[in-house]
């Protein structure tokens, strides 16, 4: 195996995996990932799948989900788990931030809801960092490209779950506009996976980089090394020259002739840059963390629709979503995913119902089938921070202050969104729900605070953000480091300001855009000019 490549990519997730597929035909590429390459070498027809991937997806439940536990048999290596400190009033306590550790990254595991950012997000990029070339128009062709490669589509209503249909109908009766959730799946069996703690698609229908771009890269000659943990980027004379990684206990340094790409996610990328000494050159590394606090809402609706079941115990489908609106008709910074399965099918959500003792147990017996919705608060008015190198990074995301009070915008936005969902659930006939906006203000606020600070924050982004200047950013408009030549970041860390959606689509679009830049400006090969019309065909 050679030890010199044109491009070395650290991380085979949504960003790095996508980029690899875009550039592998134009130069020699080494793609490193800390996790296993499930199904490598097997035919991976979506919806049919590889036996090993199906087995892996089945096993991502409580047992092997757990890193290094006595019950995991040492096989709990599918996630990085980082401590995240969210409540400044209680410094002895941290929640956990879990990031996928597998070739394909989050696109290999998470159920594929494909949601684009809002227009206002792109406007916010320039306002936040002055970055140029990050407008909605600039990214439109890349979103379209990704939606084509990932088979992004919607599901006709006849195959929605009953809870989503009932939720949409109730919302429509109240004049609340719902939108159809797109998904990156193929040959989906709607929906048979049993949720325990993880969220994989057991049936191989999920279309991520492991099924699309990475096989494309391998076919073009790229080398993929799994279970290879990057230690640091080698930097000589202010130029990235290679990557040192550990694989099977052996430390190796590979040389990059033209480019090193760090694509280890919004936590992993700054950690690698810390260990590589880039923080010494640019103190913005690890700063400006943004994330989405998430809350699941659970409702007790006595009468399921015709057919008798909500399909709550067989996984979840996010078929439709909406935003709560303010008094001016503008969206509040929360996205609400209607769901039948999620609230009731996972012990996590059943556990957050605010009762305990005999009352709780009776409730579980009486309402085994429940419906719900998942709320992401999209734009907290705080910045978090990632600290530390690759060995043990930690995260500060202080959503609760030293007084134990939740950041006001998170609280007010969640209050608005939960009230909106509560109206819809009530229209569906709900007799109770959790969290319940009819609680006293103090108790409601306490409930939200507890849920947010213990659940962690999802969708981390912005820790090596793109901007106009090294004074406020880490990379430029093309995701190239301001401070180290031949060094690029390509993942959620470069997002200049928080976006209003699950980040999957945005990260892949960044990967696609970076691919065009690398082909034309780094590898100096003709860049395929992707026009909107061409993609649409």
């Amino acid at each position, binding site marked *: 195996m050679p030890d010199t490549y044109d491009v070395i990519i650290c991380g085979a997730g949504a960003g790095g995996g996508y980029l690899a597929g875009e550039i592998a035909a134009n130069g020699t590429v080494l793609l490193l990932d800390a996790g296993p390459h499930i199904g490598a070498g097997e035919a991976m027809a979506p919806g049919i799948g590889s036996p090993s991937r199906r087995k892996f997806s089945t096993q991502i439940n409580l047992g092997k989900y757990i890193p290094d536990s006595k019950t995991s048999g040492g096989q709990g290596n599918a996630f990085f*788990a980082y401590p995240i400190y969210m409540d400044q009033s209680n410094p002895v*306590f941290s929640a956990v931030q879990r990031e996928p550790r597998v070739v394909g990254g989050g696109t290999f595991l998470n159920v594929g809801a494909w949601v684009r950012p809002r227009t206002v997000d792109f406007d916010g990029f320039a306002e936040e960092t002055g970055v140029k070339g990050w407008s909605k128009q600039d990214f439109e062709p890349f979103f379209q490209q990704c939606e084509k490669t990932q088979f992004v589509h919607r599901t006709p209503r006849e195959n929605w779950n009953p809870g989503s249909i009932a939720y949409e109908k109730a919302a429509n009766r109240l004049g609340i506009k719902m939108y159809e959730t*797109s998904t990156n799946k193929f040959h989906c*069996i709607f929906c048979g996976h049993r949720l325990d703690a993880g969220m994989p698609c057991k049936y191989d229908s999920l279309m991520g980089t492991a099924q699309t771009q990475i096989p494309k890269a391998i076919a073009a000659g790229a080398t993929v090394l799994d279970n290879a943990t990057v230690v640091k980027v080698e930097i000589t004379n202010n130029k990235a020259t290679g990557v040192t990684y550990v694989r099977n206990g052996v430390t190796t340094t590979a040389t990059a002739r033209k480019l090193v790409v760090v694509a280890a996610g919004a936590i992993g990328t700054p950690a690698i840059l810390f260990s590589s000494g880039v923080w010494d050159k640019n103190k913005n590394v690890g700063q400006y963390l943004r994330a989405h606090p998430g809350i699941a809402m659970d409702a007790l609706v006595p009468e399921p629709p015709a057919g008798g079941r909500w399909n709550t115990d067989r996984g979840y489908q996010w078929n439709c979503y909406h935003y709560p609106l303010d008094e001016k008709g503008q969206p509040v910074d929360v996205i609400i995913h209607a769901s039948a399965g999620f609230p009731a099918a996972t012990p996590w959500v059943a*556990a957050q119902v605010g009762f305990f003792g005999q009352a709780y147990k009776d409730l579980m017996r009486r309402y*085994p089938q429940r419906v719900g919705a998942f709320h992401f608060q999209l734009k907290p008015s705080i910045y978090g921070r990632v600290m530390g190198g690759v060995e043990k990074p930690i995260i500060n995301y202080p959503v609760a202050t030293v007084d134990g009070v939740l950041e006001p915008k998170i609280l007010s936005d969640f209050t608005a969104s939960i009230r909106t969902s509560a109206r819809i659930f009530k229209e569906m006939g709900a007799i109770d729900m959790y969290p319940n906006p009819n609680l006293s203000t103090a108790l409601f606020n306490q409930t939200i605070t507890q849920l947010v600070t213990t659940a962690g924050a999802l969708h981390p982004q912005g820790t090596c953000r793109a901007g106009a200047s090294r004074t406020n950013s880490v990379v430029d408009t093309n995701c190239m480091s301001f401070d180290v030549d031949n060094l690029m970041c390509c993942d959620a860390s470069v997002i200049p300001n928080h976006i209003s959606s699950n980040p999957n689509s945005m990260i892949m679009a960044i990967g696609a855009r970076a691919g065009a830049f690398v082909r034309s400006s780094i590898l100096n090969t003709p860049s395929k000019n992707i026009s909107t019309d061409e993609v649409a065909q």
Partner: protein
Amino acid sequence: MMRDALAELDKVVSRRVFFDRIFKAGALVAAMDVIGPKAFGALTAADKATALAVYSACCKLVIPVDQDPGWATFEPGISDYGLNVFVGQVALGGSQQALDGFIGALVAFNQAPRTLGYNDLFLNMAPDAQLQYFTTSLTGGFEADGYGDVLVVAAFFCMFTAKATFFSNYPRHLAQDTEFQVLQPSSVKTGWDIMGWKGPVGPEEEKALRAKYYDAPVIPGIDFSNPWI
């Protein structure tokens, strides 16, 4: 080293503020005595045993035994699993520092009643008194006494993880090493049995689902009726 320095700095600053807040509540000395050493990781084997006993007692309040099994029915393995695996690994991501913090909070939860009018350790209290103390802690009732954060964290996490553990189908929560999640035959009635959940899809059901949905029609692209994207 830089990470350690930053982490330590943050913690020292945060703890200073934390204890300042407790001071304002008028219980600094008591709180330092109870949780101070624990917060900095000076845990003993006795502390860990006490924490497990406190966790177990709280979980028995959360999932009582009635006509169906409860937490006590699954003892002793479920408490060890709940604390060291579910809390330690799943909820706290394997962070020993965080788990030590929670264990410290549980030890404080046991000792705090002595200064809160109960005149006894939590573990020595009668079940009704335990239930009252647990409920008051959970709802932040001891906030003004300077113990609010620690007791709320202890009670809330006990409640949350007890429910999550029980309804994760313990003790049949681990998938077997097969393509399908095979559940071993057992006479133990689990949380799923109580909920009436059907459990994992087996080969025959999957075959039927595939026959029904394979090549099902889809609508290409995204929903552009959303005016905000």
